[in-house]
């Protein structure tokens, strides 16, 4: 298989997602807003915030990953670009993986990089924050790829945002559980951290094929 079409798809998806800087704006604001809303909701007890802070960020990350999912494949479906990709010499699951990865680069990785700042607001110990950011980055991959499955299945549905959430959220469970436990355990080599990485790798290996099948269906 030629790598050229995949790289081309990835590059174009990156450009589209970035959209001159606008593409990062919505997920980032949503993420920050959700994280900041929590102290307003639960009160000013620093000890409480410190203990639930990492979990809050997991929830905010999961929700933020769904915020821009709707347009991930719908745009290409509606303007006929998906039809062109289906006829190009690359497996459609590779196209789907490239798009989702590009989307994560623009709307997922930056959020993980924001977590140190938000973590300080939520009273998390600063020393742990860089490692936490790595955890959120890895967990975010799983969220984006399962979200992508929801997006691909709902690509032909108008206003499919809610449907995407309903489909994808159950698949977030393992990553959320492992992620929270991994951050609690605190080291990069704990069993929970390895399970977190494994859940991300699992999503990378299963989700693209489901997305490919769903996109072939959507174009049909």
């Amino acid at each position, binding site marked *: 298989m030629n790598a050229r079409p995949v790289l081309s798809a990835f590059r174009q998806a990156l450009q589209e997602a970035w959209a001159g800087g606008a593409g990062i704006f919505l997920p980032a604001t949503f993420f920050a807003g959700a994280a900041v809303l929590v102290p307003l909701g639960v009160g000013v007890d620093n000890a409480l915030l410190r203990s639930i802070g990492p979990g809050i960020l997991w929830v905010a990350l999961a929700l933020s990953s769904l915020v821009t999912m709707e347009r991930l494949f719908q745009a290409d479906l509606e303007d006929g670009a998906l039809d062109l990709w289906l006829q190009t010499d690359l497996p459609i699951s590779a196209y789907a993986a490239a798009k989702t990865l590009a989307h994560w680069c623009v709307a997922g990785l930056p959020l993980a990089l924001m977590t140190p700042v938000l973590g300080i607001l939520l009273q998390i110990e600063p020393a742990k924050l860089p490692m936490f950011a790595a955890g959120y980055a890895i967990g975010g991959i799983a969220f984006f790829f399962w979200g992508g499955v929801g997006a691909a299945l709902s690509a032909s549905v108008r206003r499919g945002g809610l449907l995407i959430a309903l489909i994808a959220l*159950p698949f977030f469970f393992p990553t959320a559980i492992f992620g929270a436990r991994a951050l609690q355990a605190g080291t990069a080599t704990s069993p929970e951290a390895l399970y977190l990485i494994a*859940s991300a790798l699992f999503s990378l290996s299963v989700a693209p094929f489901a997305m490919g099948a769903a996109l072939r269906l959507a174009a049909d």
Partner: protein
Amino acid sequence: MGMLSYFANPARFMRLSNWLAPVFYTASAVLIVYGVWQGLWAVPKDEVQGGDIMRVMFIHVPGAYISMAAYGAMAVSAFIWYVWRHELADVAAKSIAPLGAGWTIICLSTGSIWGKPTFNTWWQWGDARMMSVLFLLFLYLGYMALRAAMDTRQKAARASAILAMVGILNLPLIKFSVDIFSSTLHQGASVITMEGPKMSAVYLWPLGLSALGHTFLFGAMVMTLMRAEIRTRRAGALRAQHLAGS
């Protein structure tokens, strides 16, 4: 494959279910009534597990097992349809989903009813089995919502088949993750263990028969829903033929 094709014929299914469904209904009625009688009156109460309220176990445990087995059956049907395109498999998957969801809700609500007086909580996060069943409920709801959102029957079948297969692949992972997560209210496995059943026989028999009764009821209701779906599709085809002919 011959056997699969044999069973894939809708007309044959209609003839089979015509007598099999009532048989299942009868069997299930007998077994469930027996199980309820045993559960409510005949067996002694177990104070450790909550006194009289633990009798709800005879509905709760079958509920849990049916909800999980049903998802497996649904995923297998979806796979069979996806590969061999036997229409009956799609009808089966579509019919199982709401019933599986129903038993999931029965399991969760009887679990809450049991939990509140016994452990003083309607719900306990971190309980592996309850979380697995909750996860299953979301899977069923997602499946049904996806089917409903597609505009044609063929697309609904394809999309939901993909989702069911992804779901079944995730199921071991979710079970593993909730086990990691949990400090559980549930007793450890007491029916299926390496040393044989740990539950005392006085509970085991009514429980087993009750579970069997629920299984027959589930099977009968699936057949009923499938028969209704087959008739609906036939009516649609006839109507379309009529419109095209005129």
